[in-house]
């Protein structure tokens, strides 16, 4: 398993006051695989995802991405890494309301120095790929919930990240729209070869993964690798 391991959490601990959010959590993510993090609410799934993505720092334990120790990096190094290699999809509220959907998708490219015309062209092709080209010139507020999440997926994938972190990406959607988002999200991730860390408590959403890891009381029980 080590030869292809892209991202590893080793024995993470993190407490909030009295709450042990992470209590010895470990996880391995291989390049290109889709891992579902499941488990009861409050078990530490989001905290683990935030630590894996370098958004939060654990009190002890290590997070290693592609041979580099995230926990030993400076804030600047970490945010550079996040911008270049990681993509994010959250439940809602991640799109900038004042920008059009196309501008939202183009934003990560613009931030990493791609010219406006080029960024918009790439953004448009991603919106087409996720079947939301018709909202390209609308603001996120004018798109439906399902369309908004597909725009968010486009934005997460537009920089061709190696890992996409998704925390309950369908949590605010009905099941039909949720399925549509998952179908397109995972198909696109597989095409680009991105690994996905997917937090969900919905089995039907987790069924889009290659394997699941169950989080309980801040620890992880990994299942066998699927064939």
């Amino acid at each position: 398993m080590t030869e292809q391991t892209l991202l590893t959490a080793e024995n993470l601990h993190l407490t909030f006051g009295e709450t042990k959010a992470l209590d010895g959590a470990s996880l391995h993510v291989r390049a290109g695989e889709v891992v579902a993090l499941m488990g009861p609410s409050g078990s530490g799934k989001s905290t683990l995802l935030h630590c894996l993505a370098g958004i939060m720092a654990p009190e002890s334990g290590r997070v290693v991405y592609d041979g580099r120790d995230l926990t030993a990096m400076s804030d600047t190094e970490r945010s550079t890494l996040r911008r270049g290699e990681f993509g994010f999809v959250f439940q809602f509220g991640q799109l900038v309301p004042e920008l059009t959907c196309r501008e939202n998708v183009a934003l990560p490219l613009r931030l990493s120095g791609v010219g406006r015309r080029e960024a918009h062209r790439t953004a448009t092709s991603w919106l087409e790929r996720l079947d939301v080209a018709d909202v390209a010139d609308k603001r996120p507020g004018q798109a439906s919930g399902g369309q908004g999440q597909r725009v968010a997926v486009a934005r997460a994938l537009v920089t061709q990240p190696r890992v996409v972190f998704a925390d309950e990406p369908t949590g605010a959607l009905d099941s039909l729209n949720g399925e549509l988002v998952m179908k397109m999200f995972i198909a696109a991730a597989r095409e680009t070869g991105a690994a996905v860390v997917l937090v969900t408590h919905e089995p039907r959403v987790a069924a889009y993964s290659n394997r699941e890891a169950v989080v309980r009381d801040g620890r992880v029980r990994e299942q066998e690798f699927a064939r």
Partner: protein
Amino acid sequence: MSVSFALLGLLENGPRHGYDLKRSYDDAFGRDRSLHYGQVYSTMARLLKNGLVEVELEPGDGPDRKRYAITDAGITDIEAWIGRPEKPEPYLQSTLYTKVVLALMTGRDASEVLDTQRAEHLRLMREMTHRKAQGDLADELICDHVLFHLEADLRWLELTTDRLDRLAAQIRR
């Protein structure tokens, strides 16, 4: 089928007489299907023949001179049964419930039993999700039907996992 594993499992904590076995079974699993003595003795006879239990004879006469004890082969068998996930299909709960209760009684990790089953369910859900993506609308509807049922089972597994402490306390009483 799960009755014979249940009886076998009840012997793991020590040898028992037939009537004692029936009573323990009824207490733990017999909610709406208590065992007949005949069923206990016929099951024991079969387990005996297969070498999974052995008999310790006590002096005197009458049917209850016999005490049944589990053999090493019996322990191996029950171990394998508890650890093996069931094929996801309807009306699975009573078998799973039996496994979970036996695991708790014999000091095994009951949450692992549930997690193993959960992995098996999710494996089939993946298969259905994949098939759905390849097929036409009819396939999609059929797969969705299966998916909803598997999902209901999974919720039960999750809920049972959350209630293991309470179940363990109840069993110890």
